[in-house]
């Protein structure tokens, strides 16, 4: 069904990346009758090929091209070449994701005004408000089949949730549920309901979980307007003498360099690759990289304040059975500086299988303290903390010219230091998570450090004024009108919520904008 477009067809919209942002944008444009080529660095897998084994699945799906790290974050020490745990495959990280789908809160679009100046934090208000985004949130929720919206029932709670819920209620939390999940609790949109397989991160084999791979791209392809080219790694965006983008150079599946012309280019390679691509596209006219007149490309890298609490009980939990992340406490998500920090956080159920638990419980740890915890695996419950981290100019994706990838291009270096606010929030969350579990009899609680980043945000941020950021409120770069950013790197600030619903809502909104501008012939 896919529509092969000519390399010289300069009427197409070229999208780099097929994940939550790019896959949604491409499909939505195709549904509107616009011709789209999505270039995706990774392979295309079928749902049936996903593997119920953490390391094998990691080898199948994860982005393992070379990257480097720096800064004081522990990831730099324990996983120096794996700053992020994200996907290189058609569908992007929406293949890995757990499905938690939350709207940002009103004040989270206005952090500069709400939190005030905070030393070291490069806070800025979004150029849009919650109200502006509400219609697209609604559309995204419907499209993704988010539970507890559109009359869709919540998912049933698994064992991990039962412990989580009981603990949360015991210490007085009120907003506890199996959350809003883009996982079918009943058959919907030609996809069946959750079979409680428990390998949501490994690409759902039942199709209950929304991903661009199974729920968007096939719809787009069916229109005849969308072509997805897997194993196509974009190296550079090109422009003409007037500074307009003209197309991209990529390496195809056979290792051949190709040039795809374009009317519009949209970058959606996730927050590490997107700025890298803009920086690697530097030219005489744009010596600091494309769309970088503000100098903000790659800066303000955010990864959410995260951490986990695992707790061992004296009886079995089998936390790994069933939906990985269907469980949330929202009581700490609001803005309340009495806790000693700005911003808020969510607590969500989480489990890892034994192999990943060994790798992530206490990276580098060994000896009886570590192994006795592992011995308690079957009696373990777990939660993940996700909160707003502060954008900092020095937290940054840069080109590491000393290290080249398999194509000979400088790799991305990801530099990260926690802000004092992140640290204060994390210790509060560790305390609360521990209290929840101790309230229902945990014999041992383990505050577990952040994993390689799953939420990567902010490196091409939206701003009202061109000098403060990279893109405007439609994700259109301030500098180049036919160059867009369509992924989480647009986020001005991160909010406390898992980002993907917002990424999808922004992509749907951007599709309307692009279609409108195309028909007005302004781009």
């Amino acid at each position, binding site marked *: 069904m896919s529509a092969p477009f000519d390399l010289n067809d300069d009427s197409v919209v070229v999208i780099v990346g097929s994940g939550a942002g790019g896959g949604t944008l491409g499909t939505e444009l195709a549904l509107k009758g616009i011709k789209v080529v999505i270039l995706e660095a990774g392979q295309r897998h079928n749902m049936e090929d996903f593997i119920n084994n953490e390391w094998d699945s990691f080898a199948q799906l994860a982005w393992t091209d070379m990257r480097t790290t720096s800064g004081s974050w522990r990831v730099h020490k324990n996983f120096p070449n794996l700053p992020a745990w994200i996907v290189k495959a058609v569908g992007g990280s929406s293949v890995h994701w757990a499905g938690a789908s939350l709207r940002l809160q009103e004040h989270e679009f206005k952090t500069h005004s709400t939190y005030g100046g905070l030393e070291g934090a490069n806070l800025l208000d979004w150029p849009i408000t919650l109200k502006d985004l509400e219609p697209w949130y609604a559309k995204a929720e419907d499209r993704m089949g988010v539970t507890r919206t559109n009359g869709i029932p919540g998912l049933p709670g698994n064992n991990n949730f*039962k412990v989580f819920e009981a603990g949360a209620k015991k210490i007085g939390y009120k907003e506890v549920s199996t959350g809003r999940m883009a996982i079918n609790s009943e058959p919907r949109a030609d996809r069946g309901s959750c079979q409680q397989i*428990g390998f949501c991160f490994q690409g759902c084999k039942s199709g209950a979980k929304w991903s661009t791979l199974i729920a968007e791209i096939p719809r787009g392809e069916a229109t005849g307007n969308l072509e997805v080219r897997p194993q196509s790694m974009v190296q550079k965006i090109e422009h003409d003498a007037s500074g307009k983008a003209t197309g991209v150079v990529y390496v195809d599946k056979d290792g051949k360099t190709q040039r795809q012309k374009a009317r519009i280019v949209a970058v959606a390679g996730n927050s590490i690759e997107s700025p890298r691509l803009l920086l690697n596209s530097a030219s005489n006219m744009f010596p600091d990289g494309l769309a970088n007149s503000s100098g903000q490309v790659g800066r303000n890298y955010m990864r959410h304040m995260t951490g986990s609490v695992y707790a061992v009980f004296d009886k079995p939990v089998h936390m790994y059975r069933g939906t990985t992340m269907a469980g949330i406490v929202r009581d700490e998500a609001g803005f309340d500086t009495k806790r000693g920090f700005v911003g808020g956080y969510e607590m969500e159920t989480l489990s890892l299988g034994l192999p990943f638990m060994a790798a992530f419980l206490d990276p580098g740890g060994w000896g009886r303290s570590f192994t006795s915890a592992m011995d308690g695996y079957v009696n373990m419950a777990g939660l993940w903390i996700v909160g707003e981290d502060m954008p900092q100019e020095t937290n940054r994706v840069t080109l590491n010219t000393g290290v080249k990838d398999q194509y000979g291009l400088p790799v991305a270096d990801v530099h990260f230091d926690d802000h004092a606010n992140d640290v204060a929030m994390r210790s509060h969350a560790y305390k609360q998570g521990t209290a929840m579990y101790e309230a229902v009899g945990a014999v041992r609680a383990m505050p577990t450090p952040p994993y390689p980043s799953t939420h990567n945000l902010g490196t091409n941020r939206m701003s009202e004024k061109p000098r403060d950021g990279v893109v405007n409120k439609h994700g259109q770069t301030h500098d180049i009108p036919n160059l867009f950013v369509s992924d989480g790197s647009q986020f001005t600030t991160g909010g406390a919520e898992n980002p993907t619903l917002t990424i999808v809502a922004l992509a749907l909104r951007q599709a309307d904008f692009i279609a409108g501008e195309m028909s007005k012939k302004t781009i």
Partner: protein
Amino acid sequence: MPTLIDRRGPSRRAVLGGIGAAGALMVSGAAVLNPREAWGLEVSALKPETMRTLIVMARDIYPHDRVPDRFYAIAVKPYEAAAAKDPATKTLIEEGVVTLDTLAKAKHGTAYADLGWEDQRVAVVKQIEGGAFFEKVRSGLVVGLYNQEEVWPIFGYEGSSADKGGYIDRGFNDLAWL
């Protein structure tokens, strides 16, 4: 145990270096044997004593009393092939083991693997913690030990589930003790 030589009892009398940690692990010819668990592991690139020490060290790093030696042996067995292929790896490992033994002998007059108490051995391992040899062995174990499917049931992890229909009818919410 596909990756080990399965010997139902050693055919020859094995030479045992002592009665320490190595416990049932003995060296015979070019092999490390564990008669109790009925397996043997032949080596050629590495010295058999080295392989035996690696197995002991693996357990000292990630001690699980319910996990039999053979899983530790499977976890460190790849160093034999790595040493055969790469002289630098071979040197790193052989020299690492010599260091462990030197440190152990200086303090206790006994090779590392023959020290009787885990605490004594761990104190020796602590002295090389963070070094290249230690890190290689430790980080290799994270996957080499915990990613063995046969180990999972010991920890109560059930592994792959889609092929069994998920947990929808297999206890995803069977917890009743709360």
